[in-house]
């Protein structure tokens, strides 16, 4: 983040903590994409994801006093969103249980940039367990290191690494079964 933008973010945080709604709206605008994307990629439902993101920002508004810096704000939002996503999935069981038998077999050989592969991968990721799915999401959406993910999800770094390794192995295996060695 640039120095000017960091200063601006600090000002928004300070003003929001004092009850400035305009400053808080700026914070929402700045981070809504991150929060919504996390919720959407995890829950695969736009409506539920928007509701969850709204709840996260409402919770942030109530806890603005505890936010110390822009980095802390980002960390706080990621942490709250990831925990709420996992809770939501466990509560409503919205995670679609897509088995490999339900995934249609490709009828012909596809080129590497085929969107079918992306769609297939997307569906396969939803079959992973909640925590493993969140680890993959934070790694590839937010580009976080295993240590940062471990801090966010309150788990050991080695567990994060093993989640990542196992998830990628599962996905690779499934894709290989669907597309063959050449594709993956």
């Amino acid at each position, binding site marked *: 983040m640039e120095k000017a933008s960091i200063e601006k973010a600090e000002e928004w945080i300070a003003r929001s903590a004092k009850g400035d*709604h305009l400053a*808080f*709206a700026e914070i929402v605008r700045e981070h809504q994409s991150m929060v919504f*994307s996390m919720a959407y990629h995890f829950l695969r439902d736009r409506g539920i994801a928007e509701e969850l*993101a709204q709840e996260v*920002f409402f919770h942030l508004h109530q806890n603005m006093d505890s936010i110390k810096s822009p980095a802390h704000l980002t960390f706080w939002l990621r942490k709250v969103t990831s925990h709420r996503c996992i809770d939501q999935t466990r509560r409503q069981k919205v995670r679609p249980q897509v088995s490999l038998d339900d995934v249609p077999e490709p009828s012909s050989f596809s080129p590497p940039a085929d969107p079918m592969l*992306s769609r297939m*991968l997307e569906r396969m*990721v939803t079959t992973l367990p909640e925590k493993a799915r969140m680890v993959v999401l934070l790694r590839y959406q937010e580009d976080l290191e295993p240590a940062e993910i471990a801090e966010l999800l309150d788990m050991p770094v080695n567990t994060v690494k093993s989640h990542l390794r196992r998830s990628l192995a599962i996905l690779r295996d499934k894709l290989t079964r669907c597309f063959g060695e050449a594709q*993956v």
Partner: protein
Amino acid sequence: MSRIDDELRLIYGRKEPSPDFTGRVMQQIAARQTVAPQTVAPPVSKKSLWQTLRETVEMPPFRPKLRLAAAGLAACLLVALFAGQYARREAPAAGGPEVAAQAGSPSGTTGKADGGEEIIPAGNVRPAATTPPRATARKHAHNIARSNKRVREEPIDEKALAEGNAAKEKVMLALQIASSTLNEAQRIVQGDSRRGDR
């Protein structure tokens, strides 16, 4: 980096929520902030039962009627309490003979008489600590006096009177016979002793 990494980065690209998302968030916050103060109830100080009763009675529209009702209720309660105590006190005396009959029954079990007095079979001994001895003696004397008074007050039947007189004559006759027999026996004993002296 493998192909699967690239694909995952591609599918996990940032997505934007609906354009009015920020506005909705701010509206929701404003709505909850306006609702919150109304829903928070003012702190209620705890009142004792007596305070609540007093305040209810002192409410202006109901004041005279409620006071009268309370006084009436209290009087009724007092009368009922007194009557109950009196009935309880009188009950053991009225049920005396029944209690005695039950005490001699072959079942030999301990029970309660109508008057509330505990019946104790002949073999059983009441523990000394249950009632103080002075009170028991006073109660017993009271019961005897009451039963004597009841016997005196009963009207005398003529047939029973005749039977009583006949029985009295028989007893007197038997006493006379016994007396004469005793006299004869004494005379004989005295005659024998005189003859022996000679």
